[in-house]
């Protein structure tokens, strides 16, 4: 029963990939050659590749540097900096992009795109690397020093190998998010595969053209996933000793304290203060013209309702998979869990395109309805719910069930008094993360929302696309306010919601 449900969930998650594969076979080799091997695709490939490479490098330097300062150095107010460095995640990348381009219209270049996406995505590297620094056992460092290694040698031979998994995971997230990024790059007029797919779809409704571009994009994502797996290797980096690790002693910065503070301040200023100031400025400007409170309230209501429904549905779908992954470990359950992760690595634009086409062809009565939109949200955000549900199931071992049974408790009674109370926090956290992801989802919503349904993201998008920056600002402010709680969650427990 549970297995059947989990298989259905996995099948849904793999639907877009399956669609692309079947479509490619249908088009045939000659069709693929005609649609894929052309200068336009090469240009998109070059644009996408250099942006991904540049962003991963910049995010890596900024993320590791900031994480080292906050976790291992004596920089003042480390807890405050930690929250401030995670906070940019509360500003969706397309809002950040709007904030910058509305101030500096000349940013529609490679450098501009690199600046904006780096500022939006560096926390994806910062968070896991900071957590890894925190988890480093100081005994290893002390042992290395005892064996006569210098500070630099300690960093390269002891710290860096242990940060590898966290760093690669963070970089993978940056790359996958960037491949899927539509709003931010469209606004900066920087063409990548995702924006090209959208333009092709909007302009000509050109099925084969858009789908083949989507195929190339999906291949790139899969290649990234594989590369990360290969680079990460099979070695374990868990502490072998028992008991909790002591916190390490921070490195004294002395004269370098002021430059370190200046660097962190500049980073936070650019990533957080500029977008917030820009939003504030446009709010003030927009409010003087006309702030339509009614439509803002209605859009917020629609968004909350959609996000709430999606959170409930997605978390419910995550339960069988998360349960099996812990309680029935084996090849099948691993496969089912991995397929949901694979499905969500597919960019939102591809998921939307697949669902549009499938619903038109197979189930016309479902086209442009809320269930299809909810399915897209589920495919994109399932891992967020599964990770938290899984962690909760891990904490509620079968032992509690046995003990409760030996105390005379019946199966429904055990579910009510033991299993659900133990799972509730995990289920709640998973639902909250899906909720907050849906609130700021733009790409799939643009393509799949029923006519007349506007969310905060799509209302913001249509206003800012029409260069009505003042009218767009209130929607962005509501989104940032709604995202803020997720940021607090993330700064406490980086494992949550950091799945692509």
């Amino acid at each position, binding site marked *: 029963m549970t297995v059947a449900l989990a298989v259905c969930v996995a099948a849904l998650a793999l639907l877009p990939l399956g669609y692309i594969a079947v479509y490619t076979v249908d088009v045939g080799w000659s069709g693929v050659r005609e649609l894929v091997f052309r200068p336009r695709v090469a240009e998109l490939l070059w644009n996408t590749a250099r942006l991904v490479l540049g962003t991963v490098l910049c995010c890596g330097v900024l993320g590791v540097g900031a994480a080292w300062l906050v976790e291992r150095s004596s920089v003042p107010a480390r807890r405050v900096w930690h929250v401030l460095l995670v906070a940019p995640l509360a500003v969706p990348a397309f809002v950040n992009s709007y904030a910058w381009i509305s101030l500096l219209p000349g940013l529609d270049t490679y450098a501009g795109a690199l600046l904006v996406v780096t500022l939006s995505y560096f926390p994806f590297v910062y968070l896991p690397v900071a957590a890894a620094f925190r988890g480093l056992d100081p005994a290893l460092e002390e042992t290395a020093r005892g064996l006569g290694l210098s500070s630099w040698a300690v960093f390269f031979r002891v710290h860096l190998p242990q940060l590898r998994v966290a760093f690669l995971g963070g970089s993978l997230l940056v790359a996958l998010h960037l491949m899927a990024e539509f709003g931010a790059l469209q606004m900066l007029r920087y063409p990548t595969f995702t924006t090209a797919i959208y333009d092709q779809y909007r302009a000509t409704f050109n099925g084969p053209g858009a789908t083949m571009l989507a195929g190339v994009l999906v291949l790139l994502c899969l290649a990234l996933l594989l590369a990360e797996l290969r680079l990460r290797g099979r070695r374990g980096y868990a502490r072998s000793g028992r008991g909790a690790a002591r916190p390490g002693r921070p490195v004294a910065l002395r004269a370098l304290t002021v430059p370190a503070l200046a660097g962190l301040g500049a980073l936070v200023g650019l990533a957080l203060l500029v977008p917030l100031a820009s939003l504030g400025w446009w709010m003030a400007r927009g409010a003087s013209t006309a702030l339509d409170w009614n439509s803002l309230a209605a859009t917020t209501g629609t968004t909350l309702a959609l996000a709430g429904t999606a959170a409930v549905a997605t978390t419910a779908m995550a339960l069988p998979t998360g349960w099996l992954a812990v309680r029935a470990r084996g090849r099948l359950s691993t496969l089912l869990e991995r397929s949901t992760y694979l499905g969500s690595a597919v960019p939102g634009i591809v998921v939307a395109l697949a669902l549009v086409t499938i619903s038109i062809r197979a189930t016309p009565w479902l086209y442009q309805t809320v269930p299809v939109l909810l399915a897209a949200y589920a495919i994109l955000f399932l891992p967020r719910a599964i990770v938290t549900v899984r962690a909760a199931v891990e904490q509620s071992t079968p032992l509690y069930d*046995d*003990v409760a*049974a030996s105390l005379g408790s*019946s199966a429904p009674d055990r579910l009510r008094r033991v299993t659900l109370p133990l799972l509730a926090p995990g289920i709640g956290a998973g639902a909250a993360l899906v909720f907050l992801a849906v609130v700021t989802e733009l790409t799939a919503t643009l393509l799949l929302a029923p006519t007349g349904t506007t969310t905060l993201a799509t209302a913001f998008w249509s206003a800012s696309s029409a260069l009505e920056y003042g009218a767009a600002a209130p929607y962005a402010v509501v989104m940032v306010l709604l995202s803020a709680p997720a940021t607090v969650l993330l700064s406490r427990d980086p494992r949550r919601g950091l799945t692509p």
Partner: protein
Amino acid sequence: MSSLTVTDLTKSFTPGTPVLTGVDLHVPAGSLTALLGPSGCGKTTLLRLIAGFDDPDSGTVVVGDRVVTGAGRSVAARRRGIGFVPQEGGLFPHLTVAGNISFGLPRQQRRDGGRVRELLALVGLDADLADRPPHQLSGGQQQRVALARALAPGPSLVLLDEPFSSLDAGLREETRVAVAAALRAIGATAVLVTHDQAEALSMADQVAVLRGGRLVQLTDPRTLYRRPTDLDVATFVGEAVVLDADVRAGVAHCVLGALPLEPAGDAAVPDGSARVLLRPEQLRLSAPRPDLPVARVRAVDFYGHDSRVWLDLPDGRLVSARLEGADLPSAGEDVSVSVLGAALAFPQDLTAQPAAARSA
């Protein structure tokens, strides 16, 4: 509380590799039985079968005069009335101490603080702990709360699965005493799983030794120590000095001289070559004397309350002796060895079926 009778219990998780084979066990009402064995011998499986968490392939389990497993039917765990104390306590993390203890009580009694205080007092804990969450308790306190929780509904039998193995030495002793006292106070019938022979010998009324899924010996702790069923059991339940000997007319002749044998009941030890078992505390050392065998001291482990002296015997064998007191030899010295009490002989070729223990 009720007695427990297990008859011919067999269980295998994968066909062909039995975990338990034909186990018979009787635990009299109000007594504590320790299931002793190395890890992987099937003792935890036996406990889970008795509790009803798993079903055996064949065999019966009877609690009091009620058949809970057998003849193709099995009573659900929750209807057996068997209390269970898992390793590391297994307290529900979302409930307070009071919530844990009252978990198995009928609904109307759960709010009754008096019952919780009573049970806390029984296991020797302060009533102030009632409102604490489990993670604020020490390991030993968690174990005691787990016992109180198991005892709360008035079970006919309590099962304890290595309850002290996760505690450090000092806490283990203290918790062991408190748990034993609580069990005796209410006259509980209890089965305790352990791999610690000192724990089994000191706490239990009878000890069941399991090996490779079979029950190899079921007896009281003194008999188990003095007359183990074979050399394997002998070395498992305590330190042993094992020597080759030649048995003639009820006397073993070995490197330590002629040793009297334990009275063997109806089956006498056959003459011929045999192996004899002595315990290290049976050896006595003195200054070298011509009428006694001489050994050389290799090393001395000093424990404070007593000491272990490692001796190289004339035939090259290394054995240990347990000595009390401050008058210890030092390494390299020669000493004479005499033996207190009788030795237990096992025929050389049939170490698994010793004549002396067959009748025990």
